[in-house]
């Protein structure tokens, strides 16, 4: 490797900012990265407003405004390798769940009916207009690498950057969150689906065994499983496993309901129906991408319509 530093740009599209914070969260390891990388455009670390040419470009977030689209296109032009960084960039992420509502509903809720503020005007200057739909980055520009995670744990960020810098394959596994969870999957006798308002599940045993929905087995581990190891079921924020993405008839709800039915006395169809009724939650992080949207098993519009039809009746 030559002594010349690898130039890096990052930019922040429609997202929560967490992924950029996660980059800074490399702590002392960031010094190791800085040995070989020169950070140029990076909203949380530098005041560089333009986009200098770079070898690596990290994009977080999805495309929802003109600003996002413009930034994505310029980054593509200026960077040799574009990494879609974080679940928003890879699958549309939580922001992609905006698909479940119309733009008008979102604007109304945020600016007119927000329960926590008193504003009553929808802004029409300064902020760029909300596009009709959320668009995952890779429908706007070509993406070279994908790093899911909401945000990805620094362990994976460091490994990804280090492998790129050193020109080698990243040493990561395709394990699901269960692979790092410390709970034991035992066969339990739960007869109905429960939630944490009903009871605090025993921390020694798998949530599924106790009748609680946990998406760990359907979720790629890019987080080191903090949630199930600290008393909270996995909500799938890193997006689905490779198995779900490659197999057309495996899906988040089919995988979880099959396993949960084997671990409890609850019928698989009951679990599957429950997950369809709560689809906005179960698919919150990955509903905007065609990687999920093109699956023959993914009928989100029907599931939402079924529930909302019932509410309106």
């Amino acid at each position, binding site marked *: 490797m030559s002594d010349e530093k690898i130039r890096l740009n990052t930019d922040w599209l429609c997202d929560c900012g967490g992924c950029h914070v996660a980059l800074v969260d490399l702590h002392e390891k960031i010094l190791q990265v800085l040995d070989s990388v020169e950070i140029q455009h990076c909203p949380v670390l530098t005041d560089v407003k333009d986009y200098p040419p770079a070898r690596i470009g990290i994009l977080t977030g999805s495309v929802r405004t003109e600003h996002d689209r413009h930034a994505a296109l310029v980054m593509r032009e200026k960077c040799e390798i574009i*990494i879609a960084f974080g679940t928003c960039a890879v699958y549309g992420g939580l922001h992609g769940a905006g698909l479940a509502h119309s733009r008008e509903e979102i604007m109304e809720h945020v600016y007119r009916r927000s329960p926590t503020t008193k504003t009553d005007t929808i802004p029409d200057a300064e902020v760029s207009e909300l596009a009709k739909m959320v668009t995952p980055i890779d429908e706007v520009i070509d993406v070279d*690498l994908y790093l899911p995670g909401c945000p990805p744990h620094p362990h994976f960020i460091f490994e990804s950057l280090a*492998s790129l810098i050193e020109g080698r394959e990243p040493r990561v596994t395709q394990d699901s969150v269960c692979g790092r969870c410390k*709970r034991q999957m035992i066969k339990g006798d739960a007869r109905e689906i429960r939630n944490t308002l009903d009871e605090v599940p025993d921390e020694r045993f798998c949530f599924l065994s106790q009748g609680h929905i946990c998406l760990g*087995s359907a979720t790629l581990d890019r987080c080191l499983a903090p949630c199930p190891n600290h008393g909270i079921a996995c909500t799938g924020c890193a997006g689905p496993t490779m198995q779900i993405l490659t197999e*057309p008839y495996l899906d988040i709800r089919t995988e979880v309901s099959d396993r949960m039915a*084997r671990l409890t006395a609850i019928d698989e169809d009951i679990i599957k129906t429950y997950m369809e009724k709560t689809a906005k939650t179960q698919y919150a992080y990955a509903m905007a991408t065609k990687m999920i949207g*093109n*699956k023959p098993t993914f009928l989100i519009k029907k599931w939402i319509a079924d529930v909302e039809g019932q509410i309106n009746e």
Partner: protein
Amino acid sequence: MIHMKIRDAACRGCRFCVDICPTDALSFDEATQKAVVETVEDCIGCLSCGFICPSGAIRHEGHHVVKNFYRNLYFSRRMEKFL
């Protein structure tokens, strides 16, 4: 010759693999509460255990790879790019 490995650290002890294997190639160690490869010679490489394993703890090598008729092409084109 098929090789199989179950990574203990990732095994959650659910026994799904033991229950689903059509040839009883796997067994369960009650002391450690982990699945173990009992007779790899019996494995027919159906990969049922790998698919049902919740954590991705089971790896096979040297098995005959069957080409799928249908895959999600949109994802498959991107698959090699995942970090």
